């Protein structure tokens, strides 16, 4: 069965500095991997999706993630944080034929 671990429950960065949100996954087959973002009191919005086409996936708002099979990781990065990036981020995994499994989330704080 697939599972996902977000290694940090809370990350705090200064505005203009890089962002790294870490995600490790467990999957039996060839997984699909996603990152979603949730701003306060809002629904979830898709940031990016990996489906085996390219290991480096570019998403919206300058975010990207790299799929590393050998490390079973799918970390989310952004070169320069903006105040509007403050939100909760969810890493999600899905094996073929099974529903999505969500990580517990990482809350990103951006300090001015």
């Amino acid at each position: 069965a697939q599972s996902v671990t977000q290694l940090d429950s809370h990350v705090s960065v200064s505005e203009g500095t890089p962002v790294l949100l870490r995600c490790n996954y467990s999957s039996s087959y060839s997984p699909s991997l996603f990152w979603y973002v949730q701003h306060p009191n809002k629904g979830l919005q898709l940031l990016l999706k990996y489906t085996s086409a390219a290991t480096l996936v570019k998403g919206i708002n300058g975010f990207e993630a790299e799929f590393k099979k050998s490390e079973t990781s799918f970390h989310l990065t952004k070169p320069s944080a903006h105040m509007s990036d403050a939100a909760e981020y969810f890493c999600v995994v899905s094996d073929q034929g099974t529903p999505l499994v969500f990580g517990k989330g990482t809350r990103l704080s951006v300090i001015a």
Partner: protein
Amino acid sequence: DAGITQSPRHKVTETGTPVTLRCHQTENHRYMYWYRQDPGHGLRLIHYSYGVKDTDKGEVSDGYSVSRSKTEDFLLTLESATSSQTSVYFCAISATPGLAGATLQETQYFGPGTRLLVL
């Protein structure tokens, strides 16, 4: 934004009463899902539907039932609400509209959520 609405958006109810939440889509998508979101747990799947009258259980289905009599509507019912069902409930739909080959790995798009408080 994907055409997904949830009603009601907020509800306060008492323990033991029945509650029905509605998810409505205008996208003709085959798959629909109900999740609950609780602090420290992320989102957990309650039930999902892969077509009219076709549903299956998710990770936390106890105490919940669902129905889908039309493609556009997916109802979540708490037969007898308990305080442990206080949560934020999200509906989602998959991205592939009405194709037989759509899978559970498709991108999901989420509704705005329903805040439920059970006293």
